[in-house]
């Protein structure tokens, strides 16, 4: 089994480290976090150097790369203390590349190339978190127009996005029969009359907004249909597995960032006349943290390799997301314990990572949903 990186991957990571050294200092991250400010300068630097469009097909101005390379980049950004959401546009816009029409794709790409979100993904609703089939936002046809009504929640980047890729149910389709077939994707300009955005106040993820979005008789056109009517749910699900893996890769990077800070601190902090790293209780923490990081990396990279080789990753991506979300939180928590009081202050980035990591066990599919996805599929293989 060959675990080595290609020359190209090594050079790409070297370039990325150089860029992050210049554009993603610890001070800069702290400032953005404290001011609840989107790290625009960092995103601009990533776009300028081609990282923003990594994985995007060439015809849309990007540079296609394999999934392993995408995961390596996502990991490295977070390992150097960067926020996870500045990378991965290739995956988030995959829905539009695959299902959008020329005009929609052009609009989406123009935003991405300007360092802005291609769209806000209008999926989750107050009553439809893990139970995504409970989506109640509707579309209704009237006088040659289409009207969207509903309430979306936990909408990342809603304040900055120009468009929403909105999943809505056909208001005319009644009953439970064909539930999923009633969902359709629509391309909704966020400045349309009837769209109201209200930011949520969170305990972490301060650099990116998360909002409630109310849609009240939002008038759009038939041309704003994305993909095939009635196929919205399945279209959306098509990319969830690789998106989960991207989250797992970012969590791996976050854990490595916290681990590095804690391990360095353990070799410097002196108590009782010795560095705290010389105490076995700290060595145990360091060892278990490292073990979890290695496990995370193996899960992420093997799943990425399977994707690149055309293998199914339904179970793998769920396992990777589940394990990385839990282990990332455990590693960061242990890092804070090693850093002691300093780790609980905003001067130590571990405190930001500690707050930012917790939501990873909830967003993009909760731990429990990942267990549900993996568990039922694993048992199918053993059914007699």
């Amino acid at each position, binding site marked *: 089994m060959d675990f080595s990186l290609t020359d190209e991957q090594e*050079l*790409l990571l070297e370039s990325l480290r150089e860029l992050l050294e210049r554009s993603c200092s610890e001070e800069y991250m702290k400032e953005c976090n404290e001011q609840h400010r989107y790290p625009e300068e960092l995103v601009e630097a990533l776009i300028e*150097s081609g*990282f923003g469009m990594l994985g995007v097909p060439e015809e849309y101005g990007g540079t296609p*790369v394999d999934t392993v390379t995408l995961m390596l980049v996502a990991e490295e950004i977070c390992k150097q203390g960067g926020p996870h959401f500045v990378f991965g546009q290739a995956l988030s816009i995959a829905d539009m590349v695959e299902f959008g029409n020329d005009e929609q794709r052009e609009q989406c790409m123009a935003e991405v190339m300007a360092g802005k979100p291609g769209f806000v993904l209008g999926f989750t609703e107050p009553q439809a978190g893990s139970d995504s089939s409970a989506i109640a936002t509707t579309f209704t046809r009237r006088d040659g127009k289409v009207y969207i009504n509903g309430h979306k929640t936990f909408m990342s980047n809603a304040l900055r996005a120009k468009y929403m890729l909105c999943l809505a149910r056909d208001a005319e389709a009644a009953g439970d029969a064909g539930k999923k077939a009633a969902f359709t994707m629509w391309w909704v300009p966020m400045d349309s009359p009837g769209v109201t955005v209200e930011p949520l106040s969170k305990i972490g993820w301060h650099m990116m907004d998360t909002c409630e979005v109310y849609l009240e008789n939002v008038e759009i056109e038939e041309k704003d249909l994305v993909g095939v009517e009635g196929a919205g749910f399945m279209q959306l699900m098509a990319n969830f597995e690789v998106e989960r893996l991207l989250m797992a890769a970012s969590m791996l990077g976050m854990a490595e960032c916290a681990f590095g800070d804690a391990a360095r601190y353990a070799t410097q902090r002196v108590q009782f006349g010795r560095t705290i790293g010389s105490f076995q209780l700290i060595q145990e923490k360091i060892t278990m943290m490292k073990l979890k990081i290695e496990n995370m990396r193996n899960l992420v990279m093997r799943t990425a390799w399977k994707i690149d080789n055309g293998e199914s990753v339904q179970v793998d991506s769920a396992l990777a997301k589940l394990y990385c979300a839990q282990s990332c939180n455990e590693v960061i928590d242990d890092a804070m314990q090693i850093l002691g009081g300093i780790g609980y202050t905003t001067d130590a980035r571990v405190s930001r990572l500690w707050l930012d990591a917790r939501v990873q066990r909830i967003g993009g599919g909760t731990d429990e949903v990942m267990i549900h996805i993996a568990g039922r599929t694993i048992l199918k293989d053993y059914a007699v």
Partner: protein
Amino acid sequence: MTVVVAHKWAPNPQEATVAPGGTVDLSRAKPAVSEYDPVAIEVGRRLADAWGCELVGVSVGGPEIAAPMARKAALSRGLDRLVVVADERLSGAGATPTAVALAQAVGEVEDVRVVLAGDSSVDEGAHLVPSVLAGLLGWPSLAEVADVTADGGALVVERAQGSGSQVVRVDGPAVLAVAADAAVPRVAGMKDILAAGKKPVVELPLAGELPAQPEVVGRAPVPLAERGRRRIDTTDPDAAARELVAALRADGVL
């Protein structure tokens, strides 16, 4: 017309380890394009673009510099093509043999208008190679170059001189050692890295004998200065600031 950049494949100082006695160990550091050389490549790229000519990299060293990784690392920084002289005799070579081999490589490039080099190599830091190379080529040499612009076919070179600067016009070919802060090197993206693997590379055999180089028989770290251990009372900020300025003046810092 061609712009040439001489660069070195050297250990990455980020991976150096420093022993308690202050000795720097680079033996386990992975190699990379020497820290200051990307600045010279960036300046060279701008110059070549202004003239609409080719930017050629030249590198000399041990067999490792001909490895695909070393080639791609340099070419992804913006060079159009590469000329390398890779020979065991050049492993760990000092300034004079390095300059001799570089002169050979530069001689193989047609119509060279200027050779740019980094301020110094990150592992040796002798600051000598550009001057020795210029001597061998019979061209003028300018160090601490802060900026280079094309004025028709001539070069206008701004260089640091003492605490000020000097502007020099160079009409013929020259060797310029570029200051470490002369430009911010571009970060290579995936497109640049992929393209680097397809750019032409010429590998030349080392011609002739190399001059003997002096043997290093010992090294010692710079002795640490004795700390003053002076404490300034900051109860009165104005008085503290005056005292600090006076102390810095007395020590010649200001």
